[in-house]
């Protein structure tokens, strides 16, 4: 099989990676969107009507995953709602009990006041299972205490808190009059990279056409290993695993899921490494489909096995993927913790390929937390590693997102070449979201 990978393509583009770390320090306020992306959300007028009409106790949930956007939204409503708004940030009030904190803040509130509660996610983060359990239980059992406040109560929360409340505190949740959702603006959506923790990165460097050829070939070979012997089974599992990876990289998640599940089924019991790898891949597919509960279920199973057998690279990779799930649901504290753990392992064992996604993902969290300096630094290190290890997939992801960040900061001089590089690599490897990158490039280049 002739392998003409994308490697050549990468080498052709000279990326002055070092310059980015020295790039003029961007001002955080430059990124703070002054145009309020949530103004276009269909749920905003609904929420405003509900709040204008609300009297006495009623319970509302506003779902928004970006911390900064939650604050902006709260500020905007405060200015535009003709009622007094009292904002309570539970993050700032530990170690008090959240219900007591809300009650204290509501004390002496004007009759028409609406209470905004932020920071409930702090009490519900996975990092502290005991606190999470106690908080959920308290909300369910002591909902009457909140009702006695006799004012409308608006919880502004990230996604991960919603299923926890709906399932864990059904009686509390049952009282809600409405859930209002504010999606993340499209351009913020390129996000995290997943990783498999398998040292073979050859698939990452294939073009789309090569991937299709390989799929065809593997499917043919598969028939030859349909027999019942151990060897045939092992081979068949391996092939299916590869097929799954190929399908997954092309965005064919149904086919990929099927391939991994079949691989898992015929995998020998003693091949723990292979089993863990399959579980991790299945977790990734659920991540791609935004089914985070299922994703975490598989990832945790994978993590446990990888820890058991001392597969350090695998452990780092799965931790990284778990961070992606936490991040997507807006639990940034947990996400960052997993990533730090992952990066420490990868640095220790010198897993440079594994560090690319981890650094990339950390950069995203810094970005969301408005720590722009750290974000650029992490992205730059990831870019440098992608260049050194000739990793096309890493190159694509990092140059796409760092390019976007720099362009948003007004540094199109460095941002545009990165976006261009991303488009070029993305097209060649058949990345599912390359059209969006093209649109971004047009937007920033057109100015």
């Amino acid at each position, binding site marked *: 099989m002739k392998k003409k990978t994308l490697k050549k393509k990468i080498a052709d583009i000279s990326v002055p990676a070092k310059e980015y770390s020295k790039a003029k320090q961007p001002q955080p306020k430059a990124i703070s969107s002054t145009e309020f992306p949530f103004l276009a959300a269909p749920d905003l007028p609904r*929420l405003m009507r509900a709040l204008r009409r609300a009297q006495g106790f009623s319970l509302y949930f506003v779902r928004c995953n970006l911390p900064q956007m939650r604050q902006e939204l709260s500020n905007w409503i405060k200015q535009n709602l003709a009622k007094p708004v009292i904002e309570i940030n539970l993050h700032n009030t530990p170690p008090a009990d959240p219900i007591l904190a809300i009650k204290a803040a509501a004390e002496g509130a004007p009759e028409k006041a609406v209470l905004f509660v932020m920071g409930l996610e702090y009490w519900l983060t996975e990092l502290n299972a005991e606190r999470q359990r*106690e908080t959920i239980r308290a909300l*369910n059992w002591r909902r009457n205490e909140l009702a006695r406040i006799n004012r409308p109560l608006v919880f502004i929360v990230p996604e991960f808190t*919603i299923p926890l409340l*709906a399932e864990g505190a*059904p009686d509390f949740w049952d009282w*809600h009059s*409405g859930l209002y959702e504010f999606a993340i603006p499209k351009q913020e959506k390129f996000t995290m990279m997943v990783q498999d923790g398998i040292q073979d990165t050859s698939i990452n460097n294939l073009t789309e056409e090569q991937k299709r050829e390989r799929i065809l070939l593997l499917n043919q070979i598969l028939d030859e290993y349909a027999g019942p012997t151990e060897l045939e089974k092992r081979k068949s599992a391996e092939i299916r695993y590869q097929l799954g990876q190929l399908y997954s990289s092309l965005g064919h998640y149904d086919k990929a899921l099927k391939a991994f599940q079949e691989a898992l089924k015929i995998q020998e019991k003693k091949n723990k490494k292979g089993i863990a790898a399959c579980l991790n891949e299945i977790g990734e597919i659920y991540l791609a489909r935004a089914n985070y509960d*299922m994703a975490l279920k598989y990832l945790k199973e994978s993590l446990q096995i990888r820890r058991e057998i001392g597969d350090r690279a695998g452990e780092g990779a799965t931790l990284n993927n778990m961070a992606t799930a936490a991040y997507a649901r807006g639990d940034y504290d947990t996400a960052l913790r997993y990533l730090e753990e992952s990066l420490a392992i990868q640095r220790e064992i010198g897993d440079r390929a594994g560090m690319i996604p981890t650094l990339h993902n950390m950069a995203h969290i810094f970005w969301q937390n408005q720590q722009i300096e750290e974000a650029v630094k992490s992205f730059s290190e990831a870019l440098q590693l992608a260049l050194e290890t000739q990793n096309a997939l890493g190159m694509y992801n990092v140059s796409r997102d760092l390019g976007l960040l720099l362009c948003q900061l007004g540094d199109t001089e460095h941002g545009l070449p990165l976006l261009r590089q991303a488009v070029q690599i993305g097209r060649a490897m058949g990345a599912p979201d390359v059209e969006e990158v093209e649109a971004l490039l047009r937007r920033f280049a057109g100015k």
Partner: protein
Amino acid sequence: MLAAFSGQIRSGSTRKIEIRRELEKELTVFISRLNELIDDVQIQLKKKGWQGLVAIVDGLEKMHYRIQPDGQSTHSELFVQHAEQLKSPHCHILYTVPISLLFNVNLGDSFAETDVIPMVKIQEHGTKKSYRPGVDALYEIVVKRVEMEAIFDQHGDVKRLIQASGGSVRDLMRLLRFACDETDTKINRAHVEHAIQRLVREYDRLVRDEDLEGLKQIAATQQIPGDETSGRLLHHRLVLEYVNDDRWADLHPAVRECPRVKKALKSPKDTHSK
């Protein structure tokens, strides 16, 4: 003793464990003291011409559901294993129990009677024809809360909301609020449909992939199989239970509209194991 406990029961979790341990040790003492108190109250009541005492213990249905290390759920631990203690006070007692429990174990063995407060029946079992008395009753509830003429374009829109609620009053109220969120003036059919879509989205969150098989089965049989998962389905109102001549169940209309459920209901394959 009672007063001393209730004062402390809300403080810290380790304290709670201590209290619980203490209670279990002294349970018989506790119950006999409680009965002394109740007996005394009964005598006082009879003197005043009352027949007796009924205690309503509300809120136990909110009990945390967890499978214990011994494989038993916290629910059945209390209501089955400790049924004798629950029945020991010298008066009539009404407990509210988690609905899931009714299907997991035979509560009838331990307790005199179990009653289910079903959803309001709005359609006939089997024929799916609208059931007037149920619909009218829900209509009355809406009329009592809003000025119908001022808010709705046509009465048919209210009927549509009622149908979408599946006979759950809580969901009907939520749908009503959702419809009101849509407009500053009168609610029309489009607003009503938007409101229903919002409810569908909320239920879509609660449906797990592993629920699909069970939902499919219930949609087909209109009966609730007695296993762990159906408890969850009932608890979150993904499945609604109705009682008239017989007991039957169906998917919440909003659950029926969830894309994944729709797809699963259409697919002919009956089993699809992992």
